């Protein structure tokens, strides 16, 4: 237990030798800052993706021919609807449209705006769009990133798509998709189903896939089996699988960063160890004085331990605090691009503050244990040596 006298000594040890501790504190803050920033970004992205996918349909039905995705006949809808427990089946027409010249691609999604199920799902995205007015002409909704890309190429009000038949189809830019969906819809264009069909070359009576919901969770596995047995070339993808695919893509980056930071931590521990070993003679003398004046090994280790705890906690709180400001207030410049990529249309996402306490505790432990070891081992080595020698 620390009494007031010991607390006074602790303050003397920490702040009296601030120049000796300064480099250690700065290095620690940097390591914690980098680790926490990565953690905050990945937690926030994961949360945003998971929340966005929560609104997605429970299952997607596709067709695979010769191992490739193929167009799905609309007639399958009847077979799907007949399965008990399935709710709200919606056909979708979508596909990736590669621009000329090369470099960018849009995800065109054709929506049957007269279909109530599709409307329900879309209402969250299109919000206050006046559908009647929207359907009167060849209109489309584009993401902010797509709009800005088009504007740069002087397509301020409309864009001409080269259809599968080789003719140009001019679509008017009606409105921009809301920003909060930008993480998954940064390259999306939403348009009426017939226009999408023409551009993407999807035949009449065919769609890209069907999406459906299963209200009863307990029936999901059973319905997936039933759907899979409907046709030899059917492919069913559950929401869980979609989530796992997104997870994997971010975990790949997390794994990369984790490896990098394990190396960083190891280097940090080595630097600390070296630093405290280099200050060996100063420490040796001071510890020798303490020992000669009646301090036991335990007294010295206790003081040094508390000294390290103050440094560790100070650096940790500062590092995490700076990371919070960097990620959630400054929106993580540079680091965000590494995570989200900037190849096609990099998402212009605002990172939502999400704090993963278990990961923060792991960082604390990963940082604190090598720190304590790197400092206490040299101190212990001195403390157990002959105090007379220590003062020479």
């Amino acid at each position, binding site marked *: 237990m620390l*009494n*007031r*006298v010991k607390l006074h000594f602790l303050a003397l040890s920490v702040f009296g030798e601030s120049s000796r501790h300064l480099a250690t504190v700065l290095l620690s803050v940097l390591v914690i800052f980098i680790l926490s920033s990565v953690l905050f970004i990945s937690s926030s992205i994961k949360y945003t993706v998971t929340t966005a996918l929560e609104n997605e349909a429970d299952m997607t039905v596709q067709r695979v021919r010769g191992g490739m995705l193929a167009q799905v006949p609309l007639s399958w809808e009847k077979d799907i609807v007949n399965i008990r427990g399935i709710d709200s089946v919606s056909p979708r027409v979508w596909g990736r449209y590669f621009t000329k010249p090369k470099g960018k691609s849009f995800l065109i999604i054709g929506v049957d705006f007269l279909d109530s199920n599709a409307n329900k799902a879309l209402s969250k995205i299109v919000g206050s769009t006046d559908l009647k007015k929207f359907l009167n002409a060849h209109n489309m909704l584009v993401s902010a990133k797509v709009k800005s890309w088009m504007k740069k190429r002087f397509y301020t009000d409309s864009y001409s798509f080269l259809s599968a038949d080789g003719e140009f189809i001019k679509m008017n830019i009606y409105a921009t998709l809301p920003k909060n969906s930008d993480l998954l819809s940064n390259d999306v264009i939403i348009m009426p189903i017939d226009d999408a069909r023409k551009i993407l070359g999807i035949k009449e009576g065919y769609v890209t896939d069907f999406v459906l919901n299963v209200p009863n969770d307990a029936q999901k596995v059973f319905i997936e089996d039933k759907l899979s047995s409907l046709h030899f070339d059917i492919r069913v993808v559950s929401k869980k699988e979609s989530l796992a695919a997104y997870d994997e893509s971010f975990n790949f980056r997390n794994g990369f960063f984790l490896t990098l930071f394990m190396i960083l931590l190891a280097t940090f521990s080595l630097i600390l160890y070296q630093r405290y070993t280099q200050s060996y003679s100063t420490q040796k003398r001071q510890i020798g*004085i303490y020992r*000669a*004046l009646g301090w036991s090994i335990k007294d010295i280790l206790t003081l040094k331990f508390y000294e390290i705890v103050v440094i560790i906690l100070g650096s940790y709180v500062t590092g995490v605090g700076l990371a919070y400001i960097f990620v959630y207030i400054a929106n993580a410049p540079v680091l965000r691009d590494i995570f989200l990529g900037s190849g096609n249309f990099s998402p212009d996402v605002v990172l939502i503050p999400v704090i993963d306490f278990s990961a923060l505790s792991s960082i604390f432990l990963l940082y604190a244990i090598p720190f304590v070891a790197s400092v206490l081992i040299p101190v212990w080595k001195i403390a157990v040596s002959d105090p007379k020698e220590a*003062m020479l």
Partner: protein
Amino acid sequence: MSPIVEIEGLKRFYNTPAERVEVLKGINLSIERGETLILKGVSGSGKTTLLSIIAGLDRPSEGKVLVEGEAIAKLPDNHLSHFRGRHIGMVFQHYNLIEHFSVKDNVSVPLVPMNLRYQKVGQRVEDAMKKANISHKSDMLAARLSGGEKQRCTIARAIVTNPEIVICDEPTANLDRENAIKFLDILKNLHNMGKTIIIATHDSIFESLNFSHTVVYMSDGEIEKSESIE
């Protein structure tokens, strides 16, 4: 009354790969409570090693060392440290102050492990600094003190725990004559307070000590002779 320090057949040797170096070769010594003992001898005669063993900073290879009736060589580290803190005050040749601490913080170092109340520590530090005539520099950093002031700070630190024994290793080696004489005055005060003082020195200034003391002459790890001076 039994002696405060009793040494019988004390040997200290170090084994090197080539040979066994004997630093102390069978010392027998008895120091009475309140006595001032001056160990004289050339460098390498074993004075500092003998002091270190009495202070519990070194352990004997052979023989018996009793301090306050306690066989200190057999005490485990915790007990030995606390014993040293409570019963022995140390004055070192090179002062051994913590340079970035103030005088009062340096003086309070031996009191930290004793779990005393803050006010009590402050009071004891104040008293010790007064006795060593260094109170006027209490807030000054040790690094900024002169040699004489450093020595007085070391003395205050040595007596802050009110120990029975004060051990001084070449205390005047780094002092000019004026400060060395002042040191003798402080020694006299400590003697008058009833402290047992053990000094290792080869400085002739101690011949001018004007109170009763014993001089022990050491040579090559052995006691050559001793004489009491009244």
